[in-house]
């Protein structure tokens, strides 16, 4: 309000064009911001329509299949959340989205029914645009309402639009980001203009959050945490506070839990089968937690794969079927047992993953990481900023907890909520930083015409004087600390410590140190997190070494590499060197770049094994068999420097061919961070196993689409 009143006064004191324009803009700011939002929303809608291609790419084939099945049933006037299995003359209903959040599997088939299309890319694109464009429309107004900054209000929708590329083609995984971006500024606006009646607005927003959470679990849980904190702080009596908390909690459960459960029970009544009670109401929790246990290389056999979780549940309870409640109970037992037996392993995993999550914020929003700690620790309005931060931080905790509990992989499926929180914090910090500068600029314009000394004397606090004050405080702190140390050495130590001024200076210094430590910590987490994530990617993808004696079958080809690159092979590596009966290869740094390839050879249908004798010194190696004419991969396996290499073990790859195929063996770099790898190679052997796969190796089955000409 003060900002706007100051702006009106500019027009009164400065009757020039600029002064009158500022006063006019201030008088009609709400309309102007809304009109501005409308323009940005229109541009955003056109841009999103043009740039979103393959909106369904973020959904795996299982999710897409569930949606298509449900669309067919809904179009045939059947119940929601159901597919129809037709075999011969009989047909039976089966449930869809048993291991997922049910909301989208209700809403998207409905949308498809009324829109008259089953094109999932089109449906998901417009589903996203319909939710996201209104955000662009209201954001200037919302951000101005929260921060009183015209700069932040103007920049906010463009920042939203440009940063939405992370999640715009993620299918439905943008929901948590959207919920944070919409609900958090509304929460701050309510907090800023608090009256007890606004409790009902919080309840209404909790219902909206519940709608978001019905599509993606806990999408608006962070908002609910902030809303509950606000109610506890602002309502006057405990009876009212508890009633307010209960109302918000019930509203948050209304759609995501109650309505979705009611739809499932009703569906069961229509199809005449209980598809609800054996399964959890959302996607499996402990299944994802178990996968998260395998993030770091470990001696306990945890791997970050669905197959690992399924096997663990089967070992715990052979009758437990994915994704039933019984399955979840089995994995919960496994998880809690692990926590009890190896607490440091589990806690260490959480800490490492939290570091990776923190580092991602520095990767996405480096300026926010620099600004936010400083703005929270310094400035006349720091307490107000801290209050705002305390209301929104729950959203960050919920977003981060998702990656800490499961995997901190940088994909919207996991990071959406965390990304949305970081994006909102970035916009908010711009508003926090810009507001004093705008205030100062408006007051400066008010004083135009007065002499310079007069202007400077009457200027309100701003960033420039504030920074000068900080500098003088730091300087006084340094001088004071020196003097204090001298005092300690010359007089009694207690007198120096008891000096209130000294303490104040120390406080300034400690604040600066704290801000520097937070910023440095987050940026360090970013660099170390990338290495950790790369190591985890090796662990997640690498195959097991195979005992050389167990590889049997007819010899098809043998290439000795100890004398150099064999004739007919192509070499693309950075350096190849013969050394003591081995071939030392230093690869080019590209992520999956081809380094060595064998001459193609026509193989008859059958089962084949490739065995590579050698080791990886640094980085990783991908051994692959490729259909040479089509340049298509038949099969591949990854090995990293962490594997327990020995003379008796081989890097192996197995595959089946359905038709005669011209095959090349390829050795490629496997470097998550696109660094150079180092290999030591002795030989590559290709064998045909007449009796099918004898090894404990996953075998790819390949059918070429074209016939081979000899």
């Amino acid at each position: 309000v003060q900002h706007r009143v100051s702006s009106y006064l500019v027009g009164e004191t400065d009757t020039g064009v600029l002064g009158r324009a500022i006063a006019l803009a201030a008088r009609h700011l709400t309309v102007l911001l809304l009109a501005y939002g409308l323009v940005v929303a229109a541009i955003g809608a056109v841009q999103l329509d043009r740039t979103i291609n393959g909106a369904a790419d973020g959904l795996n084939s299982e999710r897409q299949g569930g949606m298509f099945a449900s669309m067919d049933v809904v179009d045939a006037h059947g119940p929601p959340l159901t597919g129809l299995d037709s075999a011969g003359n009989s047909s039976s209903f089966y449930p869809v989205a048993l291991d997922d959040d049910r909301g989208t599997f209700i809403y998207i088939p409905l949308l498809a029914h009324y829109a008259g299309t089953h094109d999932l890319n089109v449906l998901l694109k417009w589903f996203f645009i319909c939710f996201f464009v209104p955000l662009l429309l209201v954001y200037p107004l919302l951000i101005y309402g929260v921060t009183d900054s015209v700069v932040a209000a103007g920049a906010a929708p463009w920042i939203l639009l440009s940063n939405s590329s992370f999640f715009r083609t993620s299918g439905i995984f943008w929901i948590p980001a959207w919920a944070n971006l919409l609900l958090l500024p509304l929460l701050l606006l309510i907090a800023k203009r608090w009256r007890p009646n606004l409790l009902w607005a919080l309840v209404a927003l909790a219902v909206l959050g519940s709608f978001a959470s019905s599509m993606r679990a806990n999408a608006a849980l962070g908002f609910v945490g902030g809303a509950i904190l606000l109610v506890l702080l602002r309502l006057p009596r405990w009876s009212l506070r508890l009633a307010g908390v209960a109302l918000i909690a019930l509203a948050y459960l209304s759609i995501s839990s109650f309505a979705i459960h009611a739809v499932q029970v009703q569906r069961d009544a229509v199809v005449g089968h209980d598809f609800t009670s054996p399964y959890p109401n959302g996607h499996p929790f402990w299944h994802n937690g178990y996968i998260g246990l395998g993030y770091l290389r470990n001696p306990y056999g945890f791997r970050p794969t669905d197959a690992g979780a399924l096997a663990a549940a089967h070992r715990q309870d052979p009758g437990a079927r994915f994704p039933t409640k019984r399955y979840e109970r089995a994995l919960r037992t496994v998880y809690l047992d692990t926590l009890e037996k190896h607490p440091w392993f589990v806690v260490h995993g959480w800490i490492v993953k939290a570091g990776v999550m923190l580092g991602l914020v520095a990767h996405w929003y480096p300026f926010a990481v620099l600004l936010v700690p400083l703005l929270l620790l310094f400035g006349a309005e720091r307490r107000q900023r801290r209050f705002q931060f305390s209301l929104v931080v729950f959203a960050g905790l919920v977003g981060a907890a998702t990656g800490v509990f499961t995997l901190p992989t940088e994909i919207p499926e996991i990071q959406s909520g965390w990304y949305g929180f970081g994006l909102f914090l970035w916009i908010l910090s711009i508003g926090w930083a810009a507001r004093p500068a705008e205030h100062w600029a408006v007051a400066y314009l008010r004083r135009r015409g007065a002499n310079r000394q007069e202007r400077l004397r009457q200027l309100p606090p701003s960033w420039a004087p504030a920074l000068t004050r900080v500098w003088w405080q730091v300087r006084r702190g340094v001088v004071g600390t020196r003097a204090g140390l001298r005092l300690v050495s010359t007089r009694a130590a207690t007198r120096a410590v008891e000096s209130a001024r000294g303490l104040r200076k120390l406080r300034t210094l400690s604040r600066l140190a704290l801000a520097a430590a937070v910023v440095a910590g987050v940026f360090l987490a970013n660099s170390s997190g990338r290495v950790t994530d790369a190591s985890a990617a090796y662990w997640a993808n690498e195959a097991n070494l195979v005992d050389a004696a167990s590889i049997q079958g007819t010899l098809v080809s043998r290439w000795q590499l100890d004398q150099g690159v064999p004739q007919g092979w192509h070499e693309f590596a950075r350096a190849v060197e013969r050394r003591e009966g081995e071939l030392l290869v230093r690869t080019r740094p590209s992520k999956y770049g081809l380094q060595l390839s064998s001459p193609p050879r026509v193989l008859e249908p059958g089962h084949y094994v490739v065995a590579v004798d050698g080791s990886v010194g640094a980085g990783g190696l991908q051994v692959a068999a490729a259909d040479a004419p089509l340049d298509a991969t038949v099969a591949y396996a990854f090995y990293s420097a962490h594997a327990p290499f020995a003379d008796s073990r081989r890097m192996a790859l197995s595959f089946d061919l359905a038709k005669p195929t011209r095959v090349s063996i390829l050795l490629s770099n496997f470097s998550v961070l696109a660094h150079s790898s180092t290999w030591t190679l002795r030989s590559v052997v290709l064998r045909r196993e007449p009796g099918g796969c004898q090894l404990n190796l996953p075998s790819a089955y390949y059918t070429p689409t074209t016939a081979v000409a000899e």
Partner: protein
Amino acid sequence: VTVRRRASEVAASVAALAVALVALLALGWSGSPVRLHAPGAALWAGIAAVVAVVELQRARGDSGRSFLASAALCLALVALVEAAIVFVSFAPCGSTCI
């Protein structure tokens, strides 16, 4: 209770709150001892909403009774939204599914 409200100043608001809560929980809470279908839940939520609106008209603005009536209206509307989600989900299926 609304008609004979002299018996207790807040009784009608409390009753509306209770009915709205039942309408909300009986439709979708898996552990609810009472079960309602969507039409029943919508009906009871509507009744609770009407009683709450009447109470809001009668109560003083800043009284406890007014707060209870507002809470009842709020819960009734939430229950109506919940029932609406069920209705809309089964809309293509037709009235036989509901």
